[in-house]
């Protein structure tokens, strides 16, 4: 188990009711952590439509997680 910080944006922040939370998790990848937090908060978008950043760098969903990582969950983007 590792401790990571999950950070939420836009609709995810509204659905989670918070900007960020510290989680103790067995998730090995960003995708596994998303499965955990989306089940917890009811996020409905698939990873295919969302993006993830680890420590302020865009990352692949398959990226491994390390102790202390800050994982940013980005719902489907809509700039422009």
């Amino acid at each position, binding site marked *: 188990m590792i401790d990571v910080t999950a950070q939420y944006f*836009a609709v995810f922040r509204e*659905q989670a009711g918070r900007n960020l939370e510290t989680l103790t998790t067995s998730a090995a990848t960003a995708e596994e952590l998303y499965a955990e937090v989306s089940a917890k908060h009811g996020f*409905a978008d698939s990873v295919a439509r969302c993006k993830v*950043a680890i420590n302020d760098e865009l990352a692949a969903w398959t990226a491994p997680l390390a102790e202390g990582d800050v994982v*940013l969950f*980005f*719902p489907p*983007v809509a*700039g*422009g």
Partner: protein
Amino acid sequence: MSFEITDQRIDPEALKADLRHETAGACVSFEGWVRDHNDGEPVTALEYEAHASVANKEGLQILTEAVERFDLLAASGRHRVGRLEIGECAVWVGVSAAHRGAAFDACRYIIDQLKQRVPIWKKEYYRDGLSGWINCVTGTPFKARDTTS
């Protein structure tokens, strides 16, 4: 070459100064304006939110790709965040090139990529008091398609 998330009004004329080049014959620019409707529903205002540091990095990456891929002399972009009223400029992209073909193609490439890749989110406010995050599945009012510009 610069890309920035900003909470200030976008000034296209000032930004064009960065595109100046003695060999530039063509300048193409795109502005995304806040429309009064989306998918047939009346919109009264928009709110944009971004992750500024990731957005700035990804925006700059897109500009760099465009300069490599097309025959550009310069490229810049800005995206507003915060609450915007109908008619305000939410996003600006400008490019310069020796020839207009490259300028049109590159400007379009940049705005298409920005809309797909940069962490910016848009919440629409409707006349009936409801609001919705564009492109997101939420159960509450939402738009499945992004049809803003």
